[in-house]
């Protein structure tokens, strides 16, 4: 389309092979990130956010399989890259911050060991230069006493510090795209705010592309340019943040926003009935239809084509197609 | 009401189905099941299956001693002229009986002690039980079983007692670990808060969670107990001749290696067969409960 596009995920289908059968998680996910753009992906637990992000870096678990789709990074299809190219991509272009900083850091290696290993593989550097680079990244991540952190095992750090370490990893070098997969979910409220502030500040300063995956709608709203709403392996609505939040179109988005308790303390929502479908035998058509209050016959048959309801604001729902 | 029963049955069968599914997923588990079942059947029906059942008792026929495997004697005959196949089939009987006796003694005792020790972990009773159990696992079970057996007169009964004495701590440990980890689960808290008795919590809340592990361990232990029993009789501290005990058969037949290899090698294979079967089965059961 245009040169501005950094990353484009098109029609991504991903499943997991398990002993019970194949779990068809992603069904036609698409996503576009422009240079320096901050993208939010929101969705409840199990909606396939992590799966999408891992697909981008091709680090799905061994039972995961990409069945269909294309992922272009600056015009190159990641899914068709050779191993060396892929390594290059992972080393220089895209970095990822994982959901749970505790499990994302190997408990048996010191932070420094891990960072040096990563730096040395990415950039042909001397030990001391590499260390300097690592320390700088740690400092950038606002870690007090980076030397000590460098020489610590993950268990010796608090949760917030661990996540900062992960951020520091993501900041090494000049990446063009940072994927942050629920970077603050497991942190305390005040720490959450700190980490998120730091991350948004860094992203803004460096003007890199950013995919911010989160269940915390408020946090997404405050920090990104455009937002994608995901439900059960589908992107059901997307558009500029302001528009989506102030004028949600999809019944799911509407309900979801209602569900969030407000500081102002209005009447409490009743929630959405049912729960997220199981992926071994997902609902036909629109995957939200069993829980939708406006369900129609056709919802059960075909997945609705997205419709542009305002400029840049798309929604995939049959309610709007008819109109 | 009947609908309720049907529903409850339905859920139960579904659960069993799931377990069976998890179990049968691996062909190895199925092979294990087949092997274990075959040994159990052979053991139970030995007198009818064995071609020469009388060879399991006082029987000598020196005219036909040491015959190599043939159609008449598939596994050959031993130095007494007894059919090795028949004795091997009876051997399953003794091996499985040993396992059965030991495990029926050991499992309840070990489980109860383990539950108590885990539940009262901070109190002296729990500590005492664990320290005592430590003593019995401070050396490999074989070594202590051998020493105890050697101090008693050798017999299958004493071997079983000695093995049992060495074995309960493993169940105590298992239950202790399970209990101490489950003890802090909220459902135990909930039961406590409601006012359920300690016995209820131990046996109704905690124990069911250890069932899978216990069952798995029992199955695997069938193999280990048989191995231990065979080792004891191999050394000469187990079952008495002419009992067709597999370990004794191996060690007695070993004298005639390599000429009359079938006398010891078939029983040796039989031991391995039965242990293999229960090992595979045990892993299958583990899958069924965990998967």
């Amino acid at each position: 389309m245009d040169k501005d596009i950094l990353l484009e995920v098109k029609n991504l289908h991903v499943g997991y092979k398990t002993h019970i059968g194949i779990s068809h998680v992603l069904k036609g996910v698409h996503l576009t990130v422009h240079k320096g753009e901050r993208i939010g992906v929101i969705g409840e637990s199990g909606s396939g956010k992590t799966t999408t992000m891992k697909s981008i870096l091709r680090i799905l678990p061994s039972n995961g399989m990409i069945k269909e789709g294309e992922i272009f990074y600056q015009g190159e299809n990641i899914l068709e890259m050779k191993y060396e190219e892929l390594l290059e991509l992972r080393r220089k272009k895209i970095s990822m911050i994982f959901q749970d900083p505790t499990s994302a850091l190997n408990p048996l290696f010191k932070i420094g060991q891990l960072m040096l290993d990563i730096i040395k593989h990415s950039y042909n550097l001397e030990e001391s230069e590499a260390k300097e680079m690592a320390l700088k990244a740690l400092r950038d991540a606002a870690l007090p006493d980076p030397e000590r952190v460098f020489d610590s095992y993950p268990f010796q750090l608090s949760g917030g510090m661990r996540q900062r370490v992960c951020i520091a990893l993501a900041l090494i070098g000049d990446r063009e795209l940072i994927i942050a997969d629920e970077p603050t979910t497991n942190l305390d409220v005040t720490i959450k705010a700190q980490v998120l502030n730091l991350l948004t500040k860094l992203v803004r300063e460096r003007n890199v592309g950013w995919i911010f995956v989160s269940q915390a709608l408020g946090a997404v709203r405050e920090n990104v340019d455009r937002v994608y709403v995901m439900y059960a392996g589908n992107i059901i609505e997307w558009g500029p943040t302001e528009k989506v939040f102030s004028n949600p179109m999809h019944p799911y988005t509407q309900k979801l926003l209602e569900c969030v308790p407000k500081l102002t303390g209005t009447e409490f929502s009743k929630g959405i009935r049912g729960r997220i479908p199981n992926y071994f035998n997902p609902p036909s058509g629109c995957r939200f239809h069993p829980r939708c209050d406006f369900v129609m016959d056709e919802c059960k048959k075909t997945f609705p084509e997205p419709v542009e309801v305002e400029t840049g604001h798309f929604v995939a729902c049959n309610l709007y197609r008819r109109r | 009401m009947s609908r309720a029963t049907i529903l409850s049955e339905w859920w139960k069968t579904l659960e069993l189905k799931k377990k069976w599914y998890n179990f049968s997923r691996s062909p190895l588990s199925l092979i294990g099941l087949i092997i274990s079942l075959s040994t159990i059947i052979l053991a139970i029906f030995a007198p009818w299956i064995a071609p020469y059942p009388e060879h399991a008792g006082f029987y000598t026929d020196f005219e036909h001693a040491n015959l190599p495997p043939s159609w008449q004697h598939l596994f050959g005959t031993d130095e007494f002229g007894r059919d090795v196949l028949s004795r091997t089939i009876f051997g399953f009987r003794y091996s499985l009986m040993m396992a059965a006796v030991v495990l029926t003694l050991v499992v309840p005792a070990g489980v109860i002690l383990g539950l108590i020790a885990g539940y009262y972990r901070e109190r002296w009773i729990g500590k005492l039980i664990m320290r005592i159990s430590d003593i019995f696992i401070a050396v490999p079970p074989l070594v202590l079983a051998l020493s105890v057996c050697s101090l008693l007169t050798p017999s299958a009964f004493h071997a079983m007692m000695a093995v049992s004495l060495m074995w309960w701590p493993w169940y105590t440990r298992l239950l202790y670990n399970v209990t101490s980890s489950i003890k802090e689960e909220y459902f135990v808290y909930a039961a406590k808060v409601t006012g359920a008795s300690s016995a209820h919590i131990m046996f109704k809340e905690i124990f069911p969670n250890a069932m899978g592990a216990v069952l798995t361990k029992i199955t695997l232990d069938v193999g280990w107990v048989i191995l231990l029993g065979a080792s004891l009789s191999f050394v000469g501290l187990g079952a008495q001749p002419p009992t067709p005990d597999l370990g004794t058969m191996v060690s007695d037949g070993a004298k005639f290696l390599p000429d009359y290899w079938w006398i010891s090698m078939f029983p040796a294979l039989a031991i391995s067969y039965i242990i293999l079967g229960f090992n595979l089965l045990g892993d299958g059961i583990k899958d069924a409960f965990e998967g």
Partner: protein
Amino acid sequence: MFKYILVINVKSKIVRCVFKMRAIWKYVGKRVLYVIPTLIGLSIFIFILSRVLPGDPALMAAGPNAPKWVVEQIRHQLRLDKPLWEQYYYWLVDLFHGDLGYSIYTKRSVTVDVVEYLPASLQLIFLAALFEIGGALALGIISGRYAYKLPDNMVRVLAYIGISVPSFVWGLLFQLIFASLIPLFPSHGMYSYGTISPPRVTGFSLIDSLIAGQFDTFVDILWHMVLPAFALSLGAMAQDARIIRAGMVDTLQKDHVSLVRAYGIPERTIFSKYILKPSLVPAVTVMGMDIASLLGNAFMVEMIFQWPGFSRYGINVMLNKDINGIVAVVLVIGIIFAIANILVDVVVAYLDPRIGRRSA
């Protein structure tokens, strides 16, 4: 200049190591304190058992035709005429003087027997442990690397066989095949006939032969060790290979593996470093215990291969109801077991920084 840096580097490493070790030592100290009551309990158990169970060791010791007064004399010598607690008390006192009592089987101090036979067993077990660790690592890694693929399935089947076949069956089988039918290896003993054992320095014949400069004796001993050590190691090897495999398969799913992958660390490094180490932590525990358990299995294997070791001595004292011998065998194995346990803990603590050194 370069050398200088190296020195500093090494020095700081050592300092760090020492620091690390100090924490570990504290931990070890605790473990030792914990183990002592267990060992005392064990000794009480086996000691009492050996004295209360029916049987008259004095009569056995005196030999078949000995007159009554000789039997009485031996009874006195073994303190069997004293009350039980007194017997135990004196036994303990003797123990602290390094005396494990009089063996009615070898007719000398059990301590001498232990010193004489233990090294041979340890030496055998050492080789078996090498086989075990080497084999288990190789098989486990192959299996984990190609999880659920053909090599993995082959290894798994092999492992099941390895676990299921008792060590004494392996022993007999190897003897039958590799010593009798195809005489590649000697069938029994520690030396070929005519070889005079090297002068005893350490008690470990392998080491002693090297000290004495008898290189061919060394090779000879090694050659005699291959079959029994291998027979001994197979079961544990299979067991450990399974554990390593399970650890690797487990670790493969972990987020931290995804992380290093996401940052472009090549697969080979991931496997050899970030997956292997965490999978080894649980395996080390099992492996260590398995190595210690080899002493138990060695009972049969040493018997089959007539290895002049401690386990064969164990069998002999047991078959001859040598009460002091039996107590000593159990206790010595208990001590070795405890040491192995502690060593394992140290290794694990070394591998896994979280253990034993968690600060607030």
